[in-house]
């Protein structure tokens, strides 16, 4: 069965038709050509497809694995993908920090990790090392060994605090 859905992605309103069994990941990648969100396992186990979502009526965004969300569920929701993290060419402090610390290698897990890290800093601006590790436990990375990623999140937290001052 097909559904006509309205939702926003990165601030832009969309109207699309999706089959009941299609996932949000498929809709983003195949219908909206937002391919920064990656497909690593289609089983909710690797975190490469993470996006931020604000459900209708919710007061804030939360990270979800988009392969685990069926398209009809997102009617009325607001979604932010990796393509929506930067604004007008201005990178998010996390994105800057990932480049500077060397936290990206092959880059395939990077969008999902940035999404989860952004969700962490939005709810906890000053996370401890253990809190960062716990927040990213659902994101697999085979290249970096995670240490630079932890450094990058700490660096971005500092940058955000300084910007608030």
């Amino acid at each position, binding site marked *: 069965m097909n559904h006509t859905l309205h939702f926003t992605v990165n601030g832009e309103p969309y109207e699309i038709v999706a089959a009941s069994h299609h996932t949000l990941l498929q809709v983003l*990648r195949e219908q909206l*050509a*937002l*391919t*920064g*969100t*990656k*497909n*690593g*396992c*289609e*089983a909710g*186990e*690797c975190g*490469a497809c993470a996006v931020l979502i604000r459900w209708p009526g919710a007061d804030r965004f939360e990270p979800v694995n988009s392969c685990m969300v069926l398209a009809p569920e997102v009617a009325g929701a607001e979604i932010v*993908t*990796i*393509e929506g*993290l*930067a604004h007008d060419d201005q*990178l998010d402090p996390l*994105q800057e920090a*990932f*480049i*500077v610390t*060397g936290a*990206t*290698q*092959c*880059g*395939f*897990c*990077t*969008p999902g990790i*940035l999404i989860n890290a952004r969700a962490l800093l939005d709810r906890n601006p000053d996370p401890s*090392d253990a809190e*960062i*590790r*716990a927040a*990213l*436990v*659902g*994101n*697999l*990375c*085979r*290249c*970096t*060994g*995670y*240490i*630079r*990623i*932890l450094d990058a999140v700490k660096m971005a937290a500092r940058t955000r605090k300084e910007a608030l001052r």
Partner: protein
Amino acid sequence: MSQAPHHKPQLSASGRKPSLIGTSPLRIEGRAKVTGAATYVDDMPFGPALLHGMIKRSPIAHGLIKRIDVSKARALPGVRVVVTGQDFPGYTGLYLKDRRIFALDRVRYVGEAVAAVAADTPEIAQRALDLIEVEYEPLPGVFDPEFGASPAAPLVHPDLGNYECAPFIFPQPGTNISNWFKVRKGNMAQGWAAADLIYEHRYQVPHIQHVPLEPHVCVAQQDVNGKITLWSSSQSPFAQRNLIAKALNIGHSQLRVITPYVGGGFGSKAGVSIEGAAVALAMHARGRPVKLRMTREEEFYTTFVRQGLVAYIKMGMTKDGRITAVENRFYWDGGAYTEYGVNITRAAGYSGSGPYFVPNIHVDSYCVYTNHPIGGPMRGFGMAEIHFGIEQHIDQMALQLGLDPVQVRLLNCLKDGQETLTGMIMHPTGLSQCIRKAAEAIGWNAAPPPQDEKSHKRRGKGLAAMWKAPAMPPNPGSSAVVRLNEDGTATVSIGGVDIGQGAMTAMAQLAAEGLGIRVEDVRVNTVDTDYSPYEWQTVASRLTWSMGNAVLQAAENARHQILQTVAEAWGEDINDLDIVDGQVVSYRTEEARPLRDLVIYGLQRPDGTWVGGPVVGQGRFMPEYVTPLDPETGQGPRAVVHFTTGCQAVEVEVDEETGEVTVLKIVSAYDVGRAINPEMVRTQMEGGAVQGMSTALLEQIILKDGVPANPNFTDYRIATAVDAPLETENIIVEVPQDDGPFGARGVGEHPMVPTAPAIANAVYNTVGVRISSLPITGEKIWAALHPQEADPAMTPV
């Protein structure tokens, strides 16, 4: 063109000290990767004509195909292509041609491709697979390499004697042994007689998965002229072109391989795995593109896995710690096809002493066919597996003799000018430095912290050394083109792939250094075999060294063209000219001219005529000095191009109540010759160490009668952010490589080689338990600590 740099390796072409080498510019594709803009194969648009391919796989480990009926699948609306082994009966393979794109008459592992379909949607493709009928006659299987090597084992490849293979591979027809590499050096009887302690032990390494986060994916399309384009997530665009063209009997220029960004490889995307099937489908798809994308489950056991190993190590040592003799037998679980695996066992054979001087040594390295998934190359192939045993063995013997394992390693480790086990003279190496620095950084000689008697958590340290040579044919080539653009920037074309290791950034640095321009003024292209120059493969930690030489030479060639033009136009001696920060300068007249004024249009001579033209530099490199080894003794003057050496030291905490191991700190020290980009070298060390830690503590493909039991991330865990060590230290040692660009040699694979034995040694140091099989699980440690309570089935091997 000469094959090695024509100047001293540590200096640039102008004779200056390099200004960009040893600096750490940021990853040149970093912005694309953090914004989601970097395009991987699965991200490329192919429009509504795209067909979705899927593979019908064998559910049994070994059997004859009695009948395949694809008529119902073909009749299903929306199905456009169905192919089977009948359509492509030719053999393929990198070192041994033992494999077909689809099984023809016999299947040899669970998951083997027997047919493929391409359909308008994935849903239709899945239904078509279900409609394909295959009737098998099951055969007894081989699920253990030692049994497989015995005369009692059923033959997995009765035709082994008819397969084509590389001249340095020695199949044993009539057996399951597809390669037998031998080392025979010295006098074993004398070696054993000189020993005060002789110790023999068995070590076991299971199959593991590479786990690139991007699964294998490719798209193939044939145009009206018959030319095929393959978009492939690959470490080996040129090897894919070569192997697929030969397998399908088409011309090399009739096949074009395009590789955009690659989401990790670790060896799994070397050579050919799924790509032949996509091309086979495309050849029947009437011009429509066909995509083949592995699911995560397929990724776990149908592309490549790391081979399993059973190693018997016997070593003799004097009471002061000198190694007198070594006798090693390696039984490799090569899986159903060993087209790549035969070279893994060869590499393990010629490295079989570990990084030590051993005067008397026998090594037998057997590549054994089994009915398991296909063993392929994985990061440092062969080395992580053999060092797991060798490095524990050294520790165990040192401790039995009451000696310090670090001192025993320093005593025996290969020094400049000593003979390796194959008779090659060891080149200058920083191995001793690496061992000393790693030991110092972990606080090897520091007194252990006081143990809280009430706590059941204990701390200890361990260390392991390593060596590894690029494992490859004697003559793998690299080439590069450096083109100058109107604005004075340069575009570098290479055939090697940045799979995350940072090759594009290192090549940009080398091109910028060779030309005399800024790194930010260099663009590096991803690979398209129609436009990129040849590169053998992105494997063996060889790009910085081999492709780096080609890029540097191409840049210096372009530089020379530019300076010749200027010398003629200005009436100057070329030796008085240089290029600095994108400007040609004359040291004689102090005149300067930006490159953008001359690299395309040339320069005007005083008489008004013009000289020069578009600048295109070319470079190439191929080692010309590797010698064959005697098939009976493994001896020869130069087995390999060079060895990168190193050492890791770890501190662990072991919970005596649960057996759980926590890695607190990993120190890595490697001799990289010269670090082109030190920060990227450190990220390779760190990422490799954590991958090594993950394989040490967590990873194993559980195979029962050939059936994988855990092909998903819930049952096959890899290290997460929570598991990563609290601290790492990454130490660069630089003893220059004589034929490396500015002295560089590779380090991409090495950082995961010694991690598992270092952790095993640390576990022994902490709780006195020797774990001889990977992974080092809490269950194994607990069972060894509590032998009375343990279930015998859990007792460690």
